[in-house]
């Protein structure tokens, strides 16, 4: 049992670090939830892709480096430590790509993945509907069979990135019928957000920025080649993605390690050193970030990787909130400043990070649902009505 990288892995870390040091923008980019910021983040994806750092764990054929999970963890540590921008391609790389690698055709992978890695195509997720949030099985949008493909109709909502993205992936009811259970007969389909019949209405999140959108679909044609997996088998396809959505792959430990470091620096700079009342919370965040980092290494060594994404999701979502809440409390009266206007200081971007973190316990399956899953699947407690 050890925590030592091999010389090759160390070399990989050094290469990543050097490249990032030379390429990460000096000033933080504008928020990716603005039109200008979205464009700048897309350009950053292009830069990353040019260095082949956009999706290091993909096969080289699609623009990756065929890295191991451990190397991916190492890259993520370097990425966030370097203060590199948030990933506007996250939904595609973190969710659609594993789905395609698991259930897609070779044609789909070759066509879709390289454009995703380069930022040429930015993907939005289109799962939730107004009456189907936590209760995904009650989806109502439909896919109706037509010559050479399907016609999608219905309404999707809370679609992250959809305000500015190019394409989206979602689940549609394609095989309704008596006797079917609610999660049967769904199909996973890909569509362009500027296709005929698609309307996108951006929705402002708490700070007003259009971090997600409603998507209205009216007989939107999708050719067969843009269906992932077997039609009607979309639930299984989506659930394999749900693991990625909740687990380590969505929120890597490196992200929180970097945030914990910044929090320690903030504590040393902002807090009265004679008053350690907040130090305990800072230390607690540090300990949890370290625990998550080590948990990642254990996963890489063949431990619980991917098997218990609900545990992971509970952990990172609460840690992220704790990190940011502690930072705002440390900042005192500056904590509420949402972003700099004029020449005012930015206070480390903690406020925007806080707004982002607030959503963590809600998206990707609420933490209430995750606790139900942990209790039922990992602890073996009885299922039941949840009420």
């Amino acid at each position, binding site marked *: 049992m050890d925590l030592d990288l091999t010389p090759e892995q160390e070399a990989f870390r050094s290469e990543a670090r050097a490249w990032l040091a030379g390429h990460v923008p000096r000033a933080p980019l504008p928020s990716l939830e603005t039109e200008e910021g979205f464009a700048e983040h897309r350009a950053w994806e292009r830069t990353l892709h040019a260095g082949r750092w956009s999706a290091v764990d993909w096969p080289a054929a699609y623009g990756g480096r065929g890295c191991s999970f451990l190397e991916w963890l190492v890259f993520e540590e370097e990425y966030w430590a370097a203060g590199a921008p948030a990933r506007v391609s996250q939904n595609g790389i973190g969710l659609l790509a594993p789905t395609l690698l698991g259930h897609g055709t070779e044609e789909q992978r070759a066509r879709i993945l390289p454009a995703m890695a380069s930022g040429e195509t930015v993907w939005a997720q289109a799962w939730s509907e107004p009456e189907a949030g936590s209760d995904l099985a009650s989806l109502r949008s439909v896919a109706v069979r037509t010559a050479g493909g399907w016609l999608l109709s219905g309404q999707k909502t809370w679609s992250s990135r959809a305000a500015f993205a190019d394409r989206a992936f979602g689940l549609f009811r394609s095989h309704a019928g008596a006797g079917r259970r609610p999660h049967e007969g769904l199909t996973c389909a890909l569509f362009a957000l500027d296709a005929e019949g698609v309307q996108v209405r951006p929705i402002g999140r*708490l700070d007003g920025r259009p971090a997600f959108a409603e998507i209205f679909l009216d007989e939107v044609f999708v050719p067969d080649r843009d269906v992932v997996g077997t039609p009607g088998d979309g639930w299984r396809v989506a659930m394999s993605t749900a693991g990625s959505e909740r687990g380590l792959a969505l929120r890597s430990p490196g992200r929180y390690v970097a945030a914990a470091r910044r929090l320690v620096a903030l504590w040393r700079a902002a807090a009265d050193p004679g008053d350690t009342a*907040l130090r305990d919370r800072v230390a607690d965040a540090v300990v949890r970030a370290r625990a998550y980092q080590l948990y990642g290494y254990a996963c890489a060594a063949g431990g619980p990787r991917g098997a218990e994404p609900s545990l992971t999701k509970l952990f990172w979502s609460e840690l992220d909130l704790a990190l940011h809440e502690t930072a705002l409390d440390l900042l005192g*009266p500056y904590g*509420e400043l949402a*972003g700099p206007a004029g020449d005012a200081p930015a206070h480390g971007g903690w406020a925007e990070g806080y707004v982002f973190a607030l*959503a963590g316990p809600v998206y990707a399956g609420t933490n*209430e649902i995750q606790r139900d899953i942990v209790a039922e699947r990992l602890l073996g407690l009885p299922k039941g009505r949840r009420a």
Partner: protein
Amino acid sequence: MKFALDDEQLEFGRTLGRMLGAADTPSSVRAWARGDHGPGLAVWERLARAGVFGLAVPEAFGGAGPLPVEVAVAFTELGRYAVPGPAVETVAVSVLLARLAEAGRPVLAEAWLPRVCDGGARVTAALPGAPGGSPYALDADVCDGVFVAAGGPDDLFLATGHGPVQPSLDPARRLALPRCGAEPVAAGRAVREAARHAADWAAFAAAAQVLGVGLALLERTVGYVRQRKQFGVPVGAFQAVKHRLADVRVGLEFAGPLVYGAAVALAAGAPGARAEVAAAKAAASDAAYAAARAALQLHGAIGYTAEYDLSLWLGKARALRSAWGTPADCRARTLDLFS
């Protein structure tokens, strides 16, 4: 001892509540956030007529105060209806100038406070040197007088301008750094003491306001989870949801007496008033913040949108938690409560 509101005080709260409930404050807040102060100022005019801005002003300067119990009643309603504007800061300026008058310097109080009471002048304050104070002034762009106590704080300035408005996590809170000239309008130890008292009263008013914010968040969330269904049943039937809201109710229930305890201590001018105010601010902020977290979580995605009115209270719970003393700052001042 009668630790309860009298009929008149209860009626004052109900009257304000009715008035604010009818005023469509969410629209005023959204306009205010855009810098369109018109609808919000119309609400302020009604508050002035109801006497709200005179509650911390002595009768000698046109007020009815100091009446801290009535301040608590009024500010709980201001929080409940998310009224925008520098109401807490108006209390701070009222106490600051009244204290300077008590210390033998009545000029500023005479010049400003009568107009503050009747709504003829809007004021705000930045007290960076006082406990819980900030260098930023709230809503300086809509105020006639921006009072700044700097230094020890031993110097009091009237700002001559301000920097750009900074967006806050509460979109209705428009913060700016005041710009001051070289000449203070008052100076010396009296300024420092007045500023400390003003900061105490501001923390107290903020505690009452954030309590109202928490009550509104709980009420809205209970309403939502009773009708929103998932898995075929109302979300409010899930035991996890019920228990979380029950805990919120407990927190708010026991924060209330602390706010009124602080009011009574301020009314008595008791030396322990500072600790009582700190306890009220810490408990009310924590209770309201727990309400906000529960509200967001139990509404799910819709609660996270700016267009849904819940957001107006969510941001305020977070901002008021830090304003005029964070819970950690406040708790550090409460160890003497029973001494």
